[in-house]
């Protein structure tokens, strides 16, 4: 009534046991795949995340709007000269997450800042035009972003991310 054979002398029976066990294990692993994969976004959710177009004409200088793309709020700010200057005169090296303002906007469209409006700390929505740097202020844990959406103060580790977007025309962008 022994089931385990001596390890020194592998027998045909051992091979059979190992093969059966291995095949069963492969089956079990393959079964897990669809059970986990179903948790990913479904096809309709992915399709709904297609690029969107936003008309910039109604946004006056100094104003900003919030649009939704893939369930996330995107801030589109029409920055004033003063705001752009503030963003550009700070030495990049002194920032917690060093990035130049130029690299965060599209060349020739320096007045338009497009950022994902989700605090990089823990996902709250920062308030525009608040905080010491005239940019964004997150009310949850006090992170402060500047007019380029870069982190300046508080617990957030990185700048507000810039979503993928392109200028379709001078007054229209496509996000995504």
């Amino acid at each position, binding site marked *: 009534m022994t089931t385990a054979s001596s390890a020194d002398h592998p027998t045909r029976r051992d091979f059979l046991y190992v*093969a*059966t066990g291995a095949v*069963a294990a492969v*089956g079990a692993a393959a079964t897990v795949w669809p059970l986990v*994969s179903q948790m990913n976004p479904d096809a309709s959710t992915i399709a709904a995340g297609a690029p969107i177009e936003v008309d910039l004409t109604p946004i006056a200088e100094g104003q900003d709007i919030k649009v939704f793309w893939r369930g996330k709020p995107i801030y589109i700010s029409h920055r004033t000269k003063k705001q752009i200057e503030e963003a550009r005169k700070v030495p990049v090296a002194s920032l917690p997450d060093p990035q130049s303002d130029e690299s965060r906007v599209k060349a020739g469209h320096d007045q338009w800042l497009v950022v994902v409006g989700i605090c990089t700390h823990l996902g709250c929505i920062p308030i525009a035009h608040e905080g010491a740097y005239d940019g964004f202020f997150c009310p949850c844990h006090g992170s402060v972003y500047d007019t380029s959406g870069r982190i300046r103060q508080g617990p957030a580790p990185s700048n507000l991310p810039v979503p993928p977007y392109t200028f379709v025309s001078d007054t229209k962008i496509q996000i995504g």
Partner: protein
Amino acid sequence: MSGPSDFQPTNPALKWIERRLPIMGLMHSSFVAYPTPRNLNYWWTFGAILSLMLGVQILTGVILAMHYTPHADMAFKSVELIVRDVNYGWLLRNVHAAGASMFFFAVYIHMFRGLYYGSYKEPREVLWILGVIIYLLMMATGFMGYVLPWGQMSFWGATVITNLFSAVPYFGESIVTLLWGGYAVGNPTLNRFFSLHYLLPFVIAGVVVLHVWALHVAGQNNPAGVEAKTEKDTVPFTPYATIKDMFGVSCFLLFYAWFIFYMPNYLGDPENYIPANPAVTPAHIVPEWYYLPFYAILRSIPNKLAGVVAMFGAIVVLAFLPWLDNAKTRSSKYRPLAKQFFWVFVAVCIGLGYLGAQPPEGIYVIVGRILTVLYFAYFLILLPLLSRIEKPRPVPNSIADDVLAKSGGKAAPMVSSVIALMVAAGLLFGGADSARAAEGGTKPPAQKWSFSGPFGTFDRGAMQRGLKVYKEVCAACHGLSFVAFRNLAEAGGPGYSVAQAQAFASDYKVKDGPNDQGEMFERPGRPADYFPSPFPNEQAARAANGGAFPPDLSLITKARSYGRGFPQFLIDFFTQYQEQGPDYIVALLQGYEDKPPAGFNLPEGSFYNNYFPGHAIKMPKPLSDGQVTYDDGSPATVAQYAKDVTTFLMWAAEPHMEARKALGMQVFVFLILLTVLLYFTKKKVWANAH
């Protein structure tokens, strides 16, 4: 559970835990060292199969609940979205839906096995009663689960079954209102059924623990029906019973996978692909096959209250079995009369199941009454009587003697009874089918389809032409609301590129909004949009079509069917014939006659069609030769149009059919390999026991 455990782990960490919670010892004594009779046959593996099925149903059910919306307006659509959009959603749904049938199939074998071998007799009465409780819970769970897709059969099944309680004197109506949470079956009913359908499986799991506990106290019964006395009568559960159960499970999975991957709609009712409509009852309300025998009993009795009492009584009587059958001999193997009557009883149950699916008229009612009487007579008259008059044959002294007595030649009766059982199950499964056979209308001729059979794929050319026919002809009246433009570019679809699908979508105007001014506006379609419906609502559609409602075509090839009759539906199970819907649609589109046959009274505003049930259809002849221009040289004939549009609609109804069949092949190759390996492993392991 077989006395104090002598299991002691050697690992110090495990030792530490074991001293505080002896769970490993419990597992060891219950599932490793537990002595199991050495003469168990494969009917005993159904306990393991049932445990597996409960696990599968809970697992897939919890997952489906992540994607399902329990609301009367959204439930049907959410189920369709699971099947179409969720990764492997079609697989999970098929596993769960076919799983319910497999669960009942296994439980019936398990119950009949208990009946045959006298597993309910002293000292296993409580074990048996717990089993009856599990069965009742399963019936409630299965019924409520069937309501959730909120199709026509769901809705009307819910209506009929909840109305059973209106038979209760004095309180009937109040009880029914309480169950519904409204004046009729509606959204509150759906919500509570969803809640209870989620809860009850865990209650079942709890009772299963008690069932297994009771089993391990009394010990397993066995084919000889004599108790294990010495060590020679038993083998340890692991590896002997474990490997045998695994082999049994693997064989069962092969059977199960046949439904999941190749016959997903064989067990379901096509009516349930029509969204619930409180204004129209389907011509035949037929429950799922596993309730049919009880449904037949209900209908056999011409009094409402008595019918309901008889139906519930037919289940409750099982709980009294240990006291109805007083025979000292357990196993029917040694009871010559009981053995024969057992098979008569099995035939009665299958007969009742068959009758449950037939229309309640004529000979069916009479036979139904006879079988109902026989069903109760078996329990209430025959078994008590047999225990007094029957002279049993001598039973073996011990299990070891029983094992020694039968050497060789025992596999043959096993195989034949498995085949008999499969045929019987097929009869029950297909029973619902024959109800539809009686509905009238000429049987459509079977067509050759590129997508039939285990390797079937869609004909891309036919789908593209069919899409054109739909767009230029059908779309004037019929919606296609579950199909999105993006689907046209998906794998297994008509084979368009993403850009083509996008261009196709932009031809459509889609209503969107509100915009910043709060107004709705029209914009060109995007890939994510669904085919727009030609009418804003059902009322508008009826007003424009002489009172008839042109059905949405997304699921039409699955929602239409015709009876195949006996024995064709049995053959269909093996040939994987699933194309009743397409055969019917293609025949209908070509089945118009300018003049109805003499003597047929065609109502005003209707047209004569050979294949439409009742022949009077409100839809005028939709297709004529040359109506749609094909640019690939295919003939511009009605026959070609009909075939093409049906192919397209079959894809629209099941966009992942090719993925289903392809995965099915892989699963079958794997399962056959595993089953063969398990068979030899089992033989090797058991070689030690002899």
